[in-house]
Protein backbone atom coordinates (compact mmCIF):
# COMPACT_ATOMS: atom_id res chain seq x y z
CA UNK A 1 0.00 0.00 0.00
CA UNK A 2 1.30 3.47 -0.86
CA UNK A 3 1.46 6.05 1.87
CA UNK A 4 1.15 9.78 1.44
CA UNK A 5 4.27 11.61 2.63
CA UNK A 6 3.49 14.92 4.24
CA UNK A 7 7.13 15.91 3.73
CA UNK A 8 6.94 15.52 -0.06
CA UNK A 9 3.47 17.04 -0.20
CA UNK A 10 4.56 20.11 1.72
CA UNK A 11 7.81 20.43 -0.28
CA UNK A 12 5.72 20.49 -3.45
CA UNK A 13 3.26 22.94 -1.96
CA UNK A 14 5.97 25.33 -0.79
CA UNK A 15 7.98 25.08 -4.00
CA UNK A 16 7.84 27.81 -6.58
CA UNK A 17 9.50 25.37 -9.01
CA UNK A 18 7.28 22.29 -9.14
CA UNK A 19 4.07 22.93 -11.04
CA UNK A 20 2.16 20.31 -12.97
CA UNK A 21 -1.34 21.61 -12.26
CA UNK A 22 -2.01 22.40 -15.90
CA UNK A 23 -1.16 18.86 -17.08
CA UNK A 24 -4.09 17.36 -19.01
CA UNK A 25 -2.49 13.90 -19.32
CA UNK A 26 -2.58 14.11 -23.10
CA UNK A 27 0.68 12.17 -23.41
CA UNK A 28 2.47 14.39 -25.95
CA UNK A 29 5.45 14.52 -23.58
CA UNK A 30 5.80 10.75 -23.59
CA UNK A 31 5.33 10.57 -27.35
CA UNK A 32 8.14 13.03 -28.13
CA UNK A 33 10.61 11.95 -25.41
CA UNK A 34 13.87 10.85 -27.11
CA UNK A 35 14.48 8.50 -24.19
CA UNK A 36 11.05 6.91 -24.55
CA UNK A 37 10.53 7.26 -20.79
CA UNK A 38 7.02 6.03 -20.12
CA UNK A 39 6.90 6.99 -16.44
CA UNK A 40 8.09 10.55 -16.93
CA UNK A 41 6.58 12.96 -16.68
CA UNK A 42 2.81 12.36 -16.51
CA UNK A 43 2.49 9.45 -14.11
CA UNK A 44 5.34 10.51 -11.90
CA UNK A 45 4.08 14.07 -11.57
CA UNK A 46 0.69 12.78 -10.48
CA UNK A 47 2.37 10.68 -7.78
CA UNK A 48 4.27 13.76 -6.65
CA UNK A 49 1.15 15.90 -6.56
CA UNK A 50 -0.56 13.49 -4.20
CA UNK A 51 2.59 13.02 -2.12
CA UNK A 52 3.33 9.34 -2.88
CA UNK A 53 6.98 9.45 -1.90
CA UNK A 54 7.44 5.65 -2.19
CA UNK A 55 6.59 5.89 -5.88
CA UNK A 56 9.12 8.67 -6.31
CA UNK A 57 11.80 6.57 -4.60
CA UNK A 58 10.99 3.58 -6.80
CA UNK A 59 11.70 5.73 -9.84
CA UNK A 60 14.94 7.43 -8.81
CA UNK A 61 16.83 6.01 -11.75
CA UNK A 62 14.19 7.29 -14.19
CA UNK A 63 14.35 10.76 -12.66
CA UNK A 64 18.09 10.98 -13.31
CA UNK A 65 17.73 9.45 -16.79
CA UNK A 66 15.83 12.49 -18.08
CA UNK A 67 18.07 14.35 -20.56
CA UNK A 68 16.51 17.70 -19.56
CA UNK A 69 16.52 18.29 -23.30
CA UNK A 70 13.17 20.07 -23.10
CA UNK A 71 11.54 18.38 -26.11
CA UNK A 72 8.50 17.57 -23.92
CA UNK A 73 8.02 21.11 -22.62
CA UNK A 74 8.49 22.55 -26.12
CA UNK A 75 5.53 20.48 -27.31
CA UNK A 76 3.38 20.55 -24.16
CA UNK A 77 0.00 22.12 -25.01
CA UNK A 78 -0.46 23.10 -21.36
CA UNK A 79 3.01 24.69 -21.20
CA UNK A 80 4.07 22.70 -18.15
CA UNK A 81 7.71 23.39 -17.40
CA UNK A 82 8.61 19.72 -17.25
CA UNK A 83 12.39 20.03 -16.97
CA UNK A 84 12.06 22.35 -13.97
CA UNK A 85 9.79 19.78 -12.31
CA UNK A 86 12.34 17.01 -12.91
CA UNK A 87 15.06 19.21 -11.46
CA UNK A 88 12.89 19.80 -8.40
CA UNK A 89 12.59 16.03 -7.91
CA UNK A 90 16.35 15.60 -8.26
CA UNK A 91 16.89 18.30 -5.65
CA UNK A 92 14.39 16.58 -3.34
CA UNK A 93 16.08 13.18 -3.75
CA UNK A 94 19.58 14.66 -3.40
CA UNK A 95 18.60 16.27 -0.11
CA UNK A 96 16.40 13.55 1.35
CA UNK A 97 17.88 10.32 0.01
CA UNK A 98 21.50 11.06 -0.96
CA UNK A 99 22.31 13.59 1.75
CA UNK A 100 23.60 15.98 -0.89
CA UNK A 101 22.84 19.66 -1.10
Amino acid at each position, binding site marked *: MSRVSSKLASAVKCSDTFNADACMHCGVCTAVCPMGIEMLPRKLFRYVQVGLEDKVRENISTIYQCLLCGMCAENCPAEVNIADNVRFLRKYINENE*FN*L*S
Partner: protein
Amino acid sequence: MPLPTKDILGILADNLNQRKSVLPISNAAATRWSKGLDLPKGGKTVLYTGHLYQLIPIIDAMSGQMSKFENSPITKYFGLGRNVNKFINMTFFMGMMASKDEQKDYDRMLRNIALLLKKANIDFGYLYGEELYSGALVYDEGVDGSFAKHAQRVADMFKKNGVEKIITVDPHTTHTLRTVFPEFVKGFDVEVKSYLEVLAESGMEPDTQITDELSIHDSCVYARHENVVDQPRQLLAKTGAKLNEPRLCGKNTHCCGGPLESLFPSESHRIAGNRTEQLKESGGNVATMCPICLVSLRKAAKGSVKVNDLSDTLARAYGV
Protein backbone atom coordinates in the same frame (compact mmCIF):
# COMPACT_ATOMS: atom_id res chain seq x y z
CA MET B 1 24.80 -2.70 -11.50
CA PRO B 2 24.25 0.73 -13.03
CA LEU B 3 26.70 3.45 -12.06
CA PRO B 4 25.89 4.73 -8.56
CA THR B 5 24.07 8.04 -8.97
CA LYS B 6 24.62 9.11 -5.37
CA ASP B 7 28.40 8.62 -5.38
CA ILE B 8 28.97 10.17 -8.78
CA LEU B 9 26.88 13.23 -7.94
CA GLY B 10 28.74 13.38 -4.62
CA ILE B 11 32.12 13.44 -6.39
CA LEU B 12 30.98 16.16 -8.81
CA ALA B 13 29.54 18.30 -5.99
CA ASP B 14 32.61 17.76 -3.75
CA ASN B 15 34.84 18.85 -6.63
CA LEU B 16 32.76 21.97 -7.20
CA ASN B 17 32.79 22.80 -3.48
CA GLN B 18 36.48 22.10 -2.90
CA ARG B 19 38.12 22.74 -6.26
CA LYS B 20 35.70 25.12 -7.98
CA SER B 21 34.88 22.78 -10.87
CA VAL B 22 33.13 19.45 -11.36
CA LEU B 23 36.27 18.26 -13.14
CA PRO B 24 39.09 20.53 -11.96
CA ILE B 25 41.82 21.13 -14.52
CA SER B 26 45.09 23.04 -14.24
CA ASN B 27 45.37 26.69 -15.29
CA ALA B 28 47.76 25.56 -18.00
CA ALA B 29 45.18 23.19 -19.49
CA ALA B 30 42.43 25.79 -19.22
CA THR B 31 44.37 28.62 -20.89
CA ARG B 32 46.66 26.73 -23.32
CA TRP B 33 44.36 27.54 -26.26
CA SER B 34 45.04 31.27 -25.93
CA LYS B 35 48.82 31.05 -26.36
CA GLY B 36 50.12 33.50 -28.93
CA LEU B 37 46.79 35.30 -29.41
CA ASP B 38 47.82 38.22 -27.17
CA LEU B 39 44.34 38.66 -25.79
CA PRO B 40 44.23 41.50 -23.24
CA LYS B 41 43.68 40.43 -19.64
CA GLY B 42 40.19 41.23 -18.39
CA GLY B 43 38.23 44.28 -19.52
CA LYS B 44 34.56 45.23 -19.53
CA THR B 45 33.81 42.67 -22.24
CA VAL B 46 35.35 39.23 -21.91
CA LEU B 47 35.36 36.05 -23.93
CA TYR B 48 34.33 33.39 -21.44
CA THR B 49 35.09 29.74 -22.22
CA GLY B 50 33.71 28.27 -18.96
CA HIS B 51 36.27 25.46 -19.54
CA LEU B 52 33.83 23.25 -21.42
CA TYR B 53 35.84 22.84 -24.64
CA GLN B 54 39.01 22.25 -22.61
CA LEU B 55 37.27 19.57 -20.52
CA ILE B 56 36.06 17.42 -23.41
CA PRO B 57 39.31 15.46 -23.96
CA ILE B 58 39.30 14.64 -20.24
CA ILE B 59 35.59 13.73 -20.24
CA ASP B 60 36.24 11.55 -23.28
CA ALA B 61 39.07 9.67 -21.54
CA MET B 62 36.95 9.34 -18.42
CA SER B 63 33.78 8.17 -20.14
CA GLY B 64 35.73 5.37 -21.81
CA GLN B 65 36.58 4.14 -18.30
CA MET B 66 33.09 4.71 -16.92
CA SER B 67 31.47 2.71 -19.73
CA LYS B 68 33.61 -0.25 -18.67
CA PHE B 69 32.53 0.17 -15.04
CA GLU B 70 28.81 0.26 -15.90
CA ASN B 71 27.24 -3.04 -14.90
CA SER B 72 30.51 -4.25 -13.34
CA PRO B 73 31.15 -5.12 -9.66
CA ILE B 74 33.46 -2.08 -9.44
CA THR B 75 30.39 0.17 -8.99
CA LYS B 76 30.36 -0.97 -5.34
CA TYR B 77 33.61 0.91 -4.72
CA PHE B 78 32.49 4.34 -5.97
CA GLY B 79 31.64 5.37 -2.41
CA LEU B 80 35.25 4.67 -1.44
CA GLY B 81 36.34 6.57 -4.55
CA ARG B 82 34.38 9.58 -3.36
CA ASN B 83 36.24 9.57 -0.06
CA VAL B 84 39.62 9.26 -1.77
CA ASN B 85 38.69 12.09 -4.15
CA LYS B 86 38.17 14.41 -1.19
CA PHE B 87 41.91 14.22 -0.58
CA ILE B 88 43.34 13.49 -4.01
CA ASN B 89 42.06 15.21 -7.15
CA MET B 90 41.33 12.17 -9.29
CA THR B 91 40.52 14.33 -12.32
CA PHE B 92 44.23 15.14 -12.43
CA PHE B 93 44.98 11.51 -13.35
CA MET B 94 42.16 11.44 -15.88
CA GLY B 95 43.70 14.56 -17.41
CA MET B 96 46.94 12.67 -17.93
CA MET B 97 45.00 10.07 -19.93
CA ALA B 98 43.48 12.65 -22.28
CA SER B 99 44.55 12.46 -25.90
CA LYS B 100 47.01 15.23 -26.89
CA ASP B 101 45.57 15.32 -30.43
CA GLU B 102 42.09 15.77 -29.06
CA GLN B 103 43.31 18.58 -26.78
CA LYS B 104 44.82 20.36 -29.78
CA ASP B 105 41.57 19.86 -31.68
CA TYR B 106 39.39 21.47 -28.98
CA ASP B 107 41.95 24.24 -28.32
CA ARG B 108 41.80 25.09 -32.03
CA MET B 109 38.00 25.56 -31.83
CA LEU B 110 38.44 28.14 -29.07
CA ARG B 111 41.13 29.89 -31.11
CA ASN B 112 38.76 29.96 -34.08
CA ILE B 113 36.12 31.67 -31.96
CA ALA B 114 38.54 34.28 -30.59
CA LEU B 115 39.90 35.01 -34.09
CA LEU B 116 36.40 35.29 -35.57
CA LEU B 117 35.49 37.84 -32.90
CA LYS B 118 38.67 39.81 -33.64
CA LYS B 119 37.87 39.70 -37.35
CA ALA B 120 34.40 41.11 -36.54
CA ASN B 121 36.15 44.01 -34.75
CA ILE B 122 34.78 43.06 -31.35
CA ASP B 123 36.77 44.52 -28.48
CA PHE B 124 37.20 41.86 -25.80
CA GLY B 125 39.58 40.50 -23.19
CA TYR B 126 40.07 37.14 -21.49
CA LEU B 127 40.25 36.37 -17.78
CA TYR B 128 42.91 33.64 -18.19
CA GLY B 129 43.44 31.72 -14.92
CA GLU B 130 40.66 33.60 -13.14
CA GLU B 131 37.98 32.01 -15.30
CA LEU B 132 35.81 29.43 -13.56
CA TYR B 133 33.57 26.61 -14.70
CA SER B 134 29.91 27.71 -14.77
CA GLY B 135 28.48 24.94 -12.54
CA ALA B 136 26.00 23.81 -15.24
CA LEU B 137 26.18 20.07 -14.55
CA VAL B 138 25.62 20.42 -10.82
CA TYR B 139 22.63 22.67 -11.50
CA ASP B 140 21.14 20.14 -13.94
CA GLU B 141 21.55 17.35 -11.40
CA GLY B 142 19.72 19.42 -8.79
CA VAL B 143 22.54 19.87 -6.26
CA ASP B 144 21.33 23.40 -5.70
CA GLY B 145 23.19 24.26 -2.48
CA SER B 146 26.59 23.61 -4.07
CA PHE B 147 25.52 25.35 -7.25
CA ALA B 148 24.27 28.44 -5.41
CA LYS B 149 27.59 28.86 -3.57
CA HIS B 150 29.52 28.42 -6.78
CA ALA B 151 27.31 30.84 -8.72
CA GLN B 152 27.99 33.50 -6.10
CA ARG B 153 31.73 32.80 -6.35
CA VAL B 154 31.65 33.23 -10.14
CA ALA B 155 29.55 36.40 -9.87
CA ASP B 156 32.01 37.84 -7.31
CA MET B 157 34.87 37.09 -9.69
CA PHE B 158 33.12 39.02 -12.47
CA LYS B 159 32.53 41.92 -10.12
CA LYS B 160 36.15 41.96 -8.95
CA ASN B 161 37.30 42.12 -12.56
CA GLY B 162 34.79 44.82 -13.55
CA VAL B 163 33.15 42.59 -16.18
CA GLU B 164 29.98 44.02 -17.73
CA LYS B 165 29.55 41.86 -20.85
CA ILE B 166 30.35 38.20 -21.41
CA ILE B 167 30.75 36.45 -24.75
CA THR B 168 30.24 32.73 -24.28
CA VAL B 169 31.33 29.89 -26.53
CA ASP B 170 28.95 27.03 -25.71
CA PRO B 171 25.23 26.65 -24.97
CA HIS B 172 25.56 25.30 -21.42
CA THR B 173 27.67 28.20 -20.17
CA THR B 174 25.43 30.65 -22.03
CA HIS B 175 22.28 29.26 -20.42
CA THR B 176 23.78 28.99 -16.95
CA LEU B 177 25.12 32.54 -16.89
CA ARG B 178 22.28 34.22 -18.75
CA THR B 179 19.19 32.45 -17.44
CA VAL B 180 20.11 30.52 -14.28
CA PHE B 181 22.51 32.91 -12.52
CA PRO B 182 19.93 35.72 -12.14
CA GLU B 183 17.72 33.25 -10.22
CA PHE B 184 20.53 32.36 -7.80
CA VAL B 185 22.63 35.53 -7.52
CA LYS B 186 20.88 38.65 -6.31
CA GLY B 187 21.43 41.58 -8.62
CA PHE B 188 23.36 39.64 -11.28
CA ASP B 189 23.11 41.94 -14.27
CA VAL B 190 26.06 41.02 -16.49
CA GLU B 191 25.04 40.91 -20.15
CA VAL B 192 25.64 37.46 -21.66
CA LYS B 193 25.72 36.61 -25.37
CA SER B 194 26.91 33.63 -27.31
CA TYR B 195 29.67 34.26 -29.85
CA LEU B 196 27.18 33.16 -32.54
CA GLU B 197 24.84 35.98 -31.57
CA VAL B 198 27.69 38.49 -31.42
CA LEU B 199 29.04 37.47 -34.84
CA ALA B 200 25.60 37.46 -36.45
CA GLU B 201 24.87 40.94 -35.07
CA SER B 202 28.22 42.24 -36.29
CA GLY B 203 27.17 41.76 -39.90
CA MET B 204 30.61 40.43 -40.80
CA GLU B 205 31.09 39.08 -44.31
CA PRO B 206 33.05 35.98 -45.35
CA ASP B 207 36.32 36.21 -47.29
CA THR B 208 35.63 33.20 -49.45
CA GLN B 209 32.71 31.12 -50.63
CA ILE B 210 32.81 27.46 -49.61
CA THR B 211 31.10 24.45 -51.14
CA ASP B 212 30.49 22.42 -47.96
CA GLU B 213 27.26 20.50 -47.56
CA LEU B 214 26.25 20.51 -43.90
CA SER B 215 23.67 18.72 -41.82
CA ILE B 216 23.10 21.15 -38.97
CA HIS B 217 22.61 19.85 -35.43
CA ASP B 218 20.99 22.37 -33.09
CA SER B 219 21.86 22.19 -29.41
CA CYS B 220 18.77 21.64 -27.23
CA VAL B 221 19.96 24.32 -24.84
CA TYR B 222 20.67 26.93 -27.50
CA ALA B 223 17.47 26.26 -29.43
CA ARG B 224 14.92 25.70 -26.68
CA HIS B 225 16.29 27.71 -23.78
CA GLU B 226 18.33 30.49 -25.35
CA ASN B 227 16.62 31.07 -28.70
CA VAL B 228 19.85 30.65 -30.64
CA VAL B 229 18.57 29.11 -33.88
CA ASP B 230 18.78 31.69 -36.67
CA GLN B 231 22.20 33.12 -35.89
CA PRO B 232 24.32 30.10 -36.95
CA ARG B 233 22.17 29.76 -40.09
CA GLN B 234 22.64 33.45 -40.95
CA LEU B 235 26.40 33.12 -40.59
CA LEU B 236 26.52 29.94 -42.68
CA ALA B 237 24.14 31.22 -45.36
CA LYS B 238 26.60 33.95 -46.30
CA THR B 239 29.39 31.40 -46.87
CA GLY B 240 27.73 29.59 -49.77
CA ALA B 241 27.59 26.32 -47.81
CA LYS B 242 24.55 24.14 -48.53
CA LEU B 243 22.55 23.69 -45.33
CA ASN B 244 20.50 20.56 -44.80
CA GLU B 245 17.98 20.53 -41.97
CA PRO B 246 17.47 17.15 -40.30
CA ARG B 247 13.96 15.86 -39.63
CA LEU B 248 14.14 17.24 -36.10
CA CYS B 249 15.74 20.68 -36.06
CA GLY B 250 15.52 24.16 -34.57
CA LYS B 251 13.20 24.29 -31.55
CA ASN B 252 12.37 20.63 -32.12
CA THR B 253 15.96 19.43 -32.25
CA HIS B 254 16.82 15.97 -30.92
CA CYS B 255 19.25 15.61 -28.02
CA CYS B 256 22.79 14.27 -28.64
CA GLY B 257 22.60 12.07 -25.54
CA GLY B 258 25.55 13.89 -23.92
CA PRO B 259 23.80 14.88 -20.68
CA LEU B 260 23.61 11.22 -19.63
CA GLU B 261 27.27 10.41 -20.21
CA SER B 262 28.29 10.68 -16.56
CA LEU B 263 25.50 8.56 -15.05
CA PHE B 264 24.09 6.32 -17.81
CA PRO B 265 26.74 5.95 -20.52
CA SER B 266 25.03 3.19 -22.50
CA GLU B 267 21.74 5.13 -22.66
CA SER B 268 23.70 8.20 -23.69
CA HIS B 269 25.28 6.26 -26.56
CA ARG B 270 21.89 4.90 -27.65
CA ILE B 271 20.45 8.42 -27.97
CA ALA B 272 23.59 9.65 -29.76
CA GLY B 273 23.25 6.77 -32.22
CA ASN B 274 19.62 7.66 -32.96
CA ARG B 275 20.49 11.29 -33.55
CA THR B 276 23.47 10.43 -35.76
CA GLU B 277 21.21 8.39 -38.04
CA GLN B 278 18.80 11.34 -38.38
CA LEU B 279 21.68 13.67 -39.23
CA LYS B 280 23.07 11.23 -41.80
CA GLU B 281 19.65 11.00 -43.49
CA SER B 282 19.68 14.72 -44.24
CA GLY B 283 23.08 14.48 -45.93
CA GLY B 284 26.45 16.25 -45.68
CA ASN B 285 28.93 16.62 -42.85
CA VAL B 286 27.44 17.22 -39.44
CA ALA B 287 27.95 20.70 -37.94
CA THR B 288 27.59 21.09 -34.17
CA MET B 289 27.69 24.19 -31.97
CA CYS B 290 28.31 22.58 -28.58
CA PRO B 291 31.40 20.61 -27.52
CA ILE B 292 29.26 18.03 -25.72
CA CYS B 293 27.16 17.43 -28.85
CA LEU B 294 30.38 17.24 -30.85
CA VAL B 295 32.03 14.54 -28.76
CA SER B 296 28.81 12.53 -28.35
CA LEU B 297 27.96 12.49 -32.06
CA ARG B 298 31.56 11.89 -33.16
CA LYS B 299 31.73 8.81 -30.97
CA ALA B 300 28.38 7.54 -32.24
CA ALA B 301 29.26 8.20 -35.89
CA LYS B 302 32.45 6.11 -35.60
CA GLY B 303 33.76 7.79 -38.76
CA SER B 304 30.65 7.03 -40.85
CA VAL B 305 30.06 10.78 -41.21
CA LYS B 306 32.34 13.73 -40.43
CA VAL B 307 31.22 15.71 -37.38
CA ASN B 308 32.78 19.15 -36.92
CA ASP B 309 32.39 22.17 -34.70
CA LEU B 310 30.73 25.05 -36.51
CA SER B 311 33.67 27.29 -35.62
CA ASP B 312 35.92 25.26 -37.95
CA THR B 313 33.67 25.94 -40.94
CA LEU B 314 33.16 29.58 -40.01
CA ALA B 315 36.90 30.10 -39.51
CA ARG B 316 37.61 28.77 -42.99
CA ALA B 317 34.93 30.83 -44.73
CA TYR B 318 35.53 34.04 -42.80
CA GLY B 319 39.28 33.80 -43.33
CA VAL B 320 40.76 33.49 -39.86
